[in-house]
Every structure is written in C-alpha cells, then in structure tokens.
C-alpha cells in the first residue's frame, strides 16, 4: 500500500503554472528522488505533499503523518537542541516543561536512528551538518510515515553527506517512505531507488534508478541536449588584474579564466573582498580597465550580497551600475529595462514580467539575473564567486558558457569555486588556495586532479 499518493495535482500562481497534472506515489521503504531544474515545480509539489500548499485541483492521500526537512533549516539558533526538536510537543510536568524527560526523549530518538547529538547544545554553535540533524530529529519525533527532504545536502560537506545518507537508508529500511528533492545527480544515482523527473511543472519520467543513467536523467530534466560549454579561443593575453600582497601574488590576464581552487574557508572570501574593495588589504592591487568598466561581480551569497529581494528585476539590474546608467542627475530607467530584457533573454530567466519582486523567483533564476548584471556592461574583469552554487545543471551550464563568452570577448575572469569539477571544466589556469596563500598554479595543459586535490588538502 502506498504511503503517499498525489493524483492529478495542478497548482497555479499568478502568471505561472507551477505544477500541471502531476501524479506521484511513494511506497514505504523506498528512497524516491524528485529531480528537475530550478523552477520545474519540485518545491511546489513537495509543499503540496506536506499540505503546506493547497492544490487548485487533484487529490492528496497520505497514510500517516508527513514530515518535511526544509532546505533552509527552520531552527532557532539561540535555543538548545532539545528545545528545537520538541517545540510544540514539549513533555510537561504540571505547568512547566519537563526538561529532564525532554533531554531523554531527544537522546532516545537520536540513538534509535544512529545520530549523535548533545541535547543541551545551543543550535547556533553547531556546524551546519549537525544543525541538519536537529532538523531531522524534529521530524523523526513525530514518527512520520513519509519524510520529504528538500535539497538536504545543499549545505553539507562531502563527509557529512555520506553519513547523512546512511541515516536516510536506515530510515527507509525501517519502512519510512522517503522523497528527496534534489538536483545532484550523483546522489540520485548513488542513493535513490526510484527517480521522478519534473520539467516545466510536469512529470516527464518516473523510473527505477537501477534501470537508468545520470545522462538520461539530465536529459529528461532539460528536455534535450545539455548545453555544452562553448569552445575556447586562443589569443595573446594582456595583463588585467595584478595582486601583490604578503600572502598572495596573482595575475589574471585579459582573455583567460583563472580558477581559484580550495576548500571553503581558505582565504577565498578575503581575496574576493579585497578585489571588490569591501575590506582593506596590504600591498598593491591594480586592474587594467582598457576603457571599460573595471569590474563585474558575482558575489558568493546572491540573497545577502547581490540582490534586494523585495525589489523588481529592473531595479536589481540597476544596482551597482549607477555610473553606467547615469543620465545627468538621474538614472536611465528605460535603459535599465532594456538591459533587464536582454538579460532575461540571454539567460532564459523565467518570470511573469520584469516588475515582479526577485524574491518570487527560484534560486536559479535569481542567480541568472546576478550573473547577467555582472556581465552586461562588458567589464574588464569579472569576479565570479561560486557562480553556479545551488542551481541546476541546465542553469549552471548556461552560466559557465556566458563566463566563457565574456572571456572570449577579452574579459579577465577570476572564478572562485569550491567545486573542483567546475574549475577543471572551465578554467584556463587554476591556482590553489590553502590557509590564505596560493600554494600552486596549473596551466590547463597540466591539470592534474590528484595534484590539485593534494594541494587543496595541504598535503603537498
């Protein structure tokens, strides 16, 4: 008997059909991956399954309770682990919370599921991976028969991902039906038993994972060939960015992409912030403008540093371009609108119109606007910090192609990425950062995954 049935679900938002005639059935014990590009309707469909949203039509039949682990954890940082886990279902003694019983209950659920946790730890002091455990424990306390996991590994380190899936597998083995919303195809292939693909609000395929390939899934997601990263052009290179500080000596020439490889937290943010002028630095840093705007920036955190979420697409496209858009004492809104239109077209931004607040867009579409804005004035230097983080394969390939195009028209591109695969695919040269220093450089012809990896780990 299925644990959860979604039949002929349809859901529209103003201007968009988010989910169209979708059927999805989850069985006890299975790990069901729901994949699709950003904006394909995965999040809407899981919100409907969780009864957070009401469908316009169709039926939802759940046998037992449904739990949802959010992509952005819904935790209270200043409260303790047990307070977060048992919020709303606190064990009582008279009028007060029985803290002793609460700790014991949290310890019990954790132990039963093979999760290590200190019930008294304050959540904000815990690493991300452990915080997710807290979020998971809160759902497990309700003994759900269906557990929905929305992009559960987006914030996790590789070692945390492995142990996370061990837990998930154990849960499934105990008869919980599990649905994982994701766009990481490696994880789909490694851990799921069934995979359902969504595209433009419709379910395009449901199949056993064992009988398919990552390529086939990717193709079903984007509906055709995956856009290939555009070809490189060779040309003589003139210096553009030159950095000389105590720790870093780095040159990026016009017409090349230099990748910065390194594990998060090895000085990449300091480097980026020095270039953008957010923080002071010792030493010299120069950018050869060649008559262009000097710098286009794709910041690391699009929601915190790149966009004003409540503003429209047009207004966000104006941000940081005051010099370019100046017309006397005013800003040229018409040109900004044209620019926004160009960006929407070149990057295939899916939005009802250019005046909607960017917070209503999916993460991938938001990122496309950020990248489009950084490139539209054809700056001499492009600084891209994890430009494809948290977006789907199709959007990522598009962003990478546009960076390569910028390089081909003569821009210097500094690409800081925590994903070595991305750098190996796109960069002309890779510099490795470890503990704030550049510990090695590799020309494309000498790219060596093993050697780069050892430098990243500080082993060489």
């Amino acid at each position: 008997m299925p644990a959860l049935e979604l039949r002929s679900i349809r859901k529209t938002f103003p201007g968009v059909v988010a989910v169209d005639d979708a059927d999805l059935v989850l069985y006890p014990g299975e790990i069901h991956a729901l994949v699709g590009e950003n904006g394909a309707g995965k999040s809407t469909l899981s919100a409907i399954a969780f009864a957070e949203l009401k469908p316009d039509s169709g039926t939802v039949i759940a046998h037992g309770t449904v739990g949802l682990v959010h992509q952005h954890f819904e935790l209270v940082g200043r409260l303790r682990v047990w307070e977060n886990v048992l919020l709303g279902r606190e064990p009582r003694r008279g009028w007060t919370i029985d803290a002793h019983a609460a700790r014991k209950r949290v310890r019990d659920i954790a132990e039963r599921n093979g999760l290590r946790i200190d019930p008294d730890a304050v959540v904000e002091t815990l690493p991300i991976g452990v915080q997710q455990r807290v979020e998971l424990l809160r759902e497990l306390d309700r003994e759900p028969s269906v557990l929905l996991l929305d992009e559960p590994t987006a914030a996790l380190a590789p070692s945390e991902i492995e142990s996370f899936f061990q837990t998930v597998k154990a849960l499934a083995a105990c008869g919980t039906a599990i649905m994982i919303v994701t766009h990481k195809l490696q994880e789909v292939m490694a851990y799921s038993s069934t995979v359902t693909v969504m595209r433009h609000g419709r379910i395009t395929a449901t199949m056993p994972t064992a009988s398919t390939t990552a390529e086939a899934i990717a193709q079903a997601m984007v509906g055709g060939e995956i856009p290939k990263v555009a070809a490189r052009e060779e040309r003589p290179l003139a210096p553009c960015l030159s950095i000389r500080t105590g720790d870093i000596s780095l040159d990026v020439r016009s017409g090349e992409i230099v990748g910065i490889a390194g594990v998060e937290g090895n000085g990449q943010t300091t480097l980026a912030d020095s270039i953008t002028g957010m923080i002071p630095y010792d030493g010299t840093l120069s950018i050869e403008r060649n008559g262009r705007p000097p710098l286009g920036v794709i910041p690391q955190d699009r929601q915190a540093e790149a966009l004003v979420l409540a503003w429209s697409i047009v207004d966000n496209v104006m941000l940081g371009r005051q010099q370019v858009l100046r017309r006397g004492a005013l800003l040229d809104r018409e040109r900004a609108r044209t620019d926004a239109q160009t960006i929407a077209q070149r990057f295939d931004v899916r939005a009802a119109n250019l005046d909607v607040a960017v917070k209503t867009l999916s993460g991938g579409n938001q990122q496309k606007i950020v990248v489009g804005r950084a490139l539209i004035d054809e700056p001499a230097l492009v600084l891209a910090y994890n430009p494809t983080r948290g977006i789907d394969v199709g959007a990522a390939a598009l962003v990478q192609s546009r960076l390569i195009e910028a390089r081909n028209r003569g821009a210097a591109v500094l690409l800081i990425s925590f994903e070595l695969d991305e750098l190996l695919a796109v960069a002309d040269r890779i510099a490795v950062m470890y503990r704030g220093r550049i510990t090695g450089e590799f020309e494309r012809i000498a790219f060596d995954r093993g050697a780069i990896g050892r430098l990243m780990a500080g082993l060489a």
Partner: protein
Amino acid sequence: MEILSALIVLTLIKATPIIYAALGGVISERSGVINIGLEGMMAAGAFTAAIVSYATNAPLLGVLAGIVAGGLAGLVLAIAATRFKVDQIVAGTGINLICAGGAAYGLVLVFNQPGASKQVNALGPNYWVLVVLAFALAIALQWLLSRTPWGLRVRACGENPRSVAAAGLDPLALRTFAVTLSGALAGLGGAFLSIGELNLYSDGMTAGRGFIALAAVIFGRWNPLGATAASVVFGLFEALQYVLQGKISWLPADAMQALPYIAALIALAGVTGRVRAPASDGVPY
C-alpha cells in the same frame, strides 16, 4: 535617613508604571513584535481607568477597565502587525497618536473641559497592592517565559517564526496573544498613573514612560527581571528629581525633570552593540 526612605518609597512608586509597560514590552518583543505603542496604550489605560472610576465611583473597576482598554489597543496593534503586516513602527506610532488624541477629545466630551479630568475616586493607600503586584508579575513572567511550553513557543516565535510554523503551531496566534497581553500590562501601568498615584487623568501624564519602558526592555536584555531592574533605575532618577528639587539651586527645575530621560539615553548608548535582540524582533511573519 528620612530622605533615604522617602527616596526608596518614591522610587518604587515611580518605577511601578514603567515596570508594567516594560513587562508588556518584553512579552511583545520576545514574540517578535516591537511595541512602540506602549506609550499610547498607557494613555488609554490611564484615561479609561479615570473615566470608569468617575462613572462608577469604584476605582477597582477603573483599574480593570484600564487593563481592558490597554489590551484592546494592543489587539489593534497585534492585528495590524500580524494579519495586515503593517510596519510595526508605523502602526505603533499611529496607536500613540490615536490614544493621546482620543483621550484629549474624551476629556472634552465627558468633563466639558480640556487638559485634565475632574478628580475621581482613586485607589488611595491601596495602590501599594499594585506596586507589589508589578514585582510579582515580573517574577511570574520570568518563570512563564523560561519554564513553560508557552514561554518556549513565544521565544521561538521571536527568534524564527517559521520554526514555530514548522512545529505545527500558529506564529500569528502566538504574536496576537502576546501583543494583546502587552497592551493590557501597559494599560495597567497607565491605570496606576491616573488612579493609583493620583486621582485624575491629565493630558500628557504618561510623559514618555512608554518609551522609557522600551529603553528598559533593551537595558534589561529582553528579560522580565532585567527590564524590571532597569525600570527601578529609571524610577530612581525620576524620584531623585522630586527629592532634589529646591536643594540644588543652581540647577533649573526643567533640567531636573529631564533626569530620567537622560538616564535612559545614557543607558541605551552604553548597552548598544553589547545586547542582542530577538532575531525576528520587528520582522512581520
């Protein structure tokens, strides 16, 4: 010695209305709503208490009416801040203006005179009950917030209302209740001003105590007991002004009256950057 005991008594009396309002402020802000309307809710409580005491000759009914009036003003802010997601500062300021203006107009309607009400039956010596009650409520609220399920939920709601929703509870209902309670407490503080300490309502008698209470909330780090201690400090400065009046001839009386406000300003400047408000304080859900 005499002057010292007089100072202590006066400090407690002057602190009491600020304590009530500050406790209201703590509850509201811990749930995630900044109650800038405390001042107006105090005025509503003070005015209504005086009117009802005048009409019934029963000051106790007046106190209850003051609580209800403050609670209603709190409910208005709560609905504006939750259901309609109005900016909390704007809505609270609106409540301050409406309550002050409404009371001024009410004086003319009921007593046919602007500025102040006629003298009404006051609590008299019984006002001590309300002084003691303020401190008792502070202890009770501290206990409720830190030990009970309701307290945990209110605190979670002020930090991250979505966590409350994820736990299957209604953050808006929690906030509505907290802000209404906040108004009721401020109303009680107002009632103490008009028919506890005095026996009439006069325009502007709250004199910024609602804002002083907001300072006490921050100075007391959003804890009921901390806010109460801060209120006592502000009460002390207000009391000092009476005790010192005429004793320091070179200082003008106006400067003396400014003492509690200056104290609040200095206190706030001193703690800024070293205290941490609830993460979702003032953020609509």
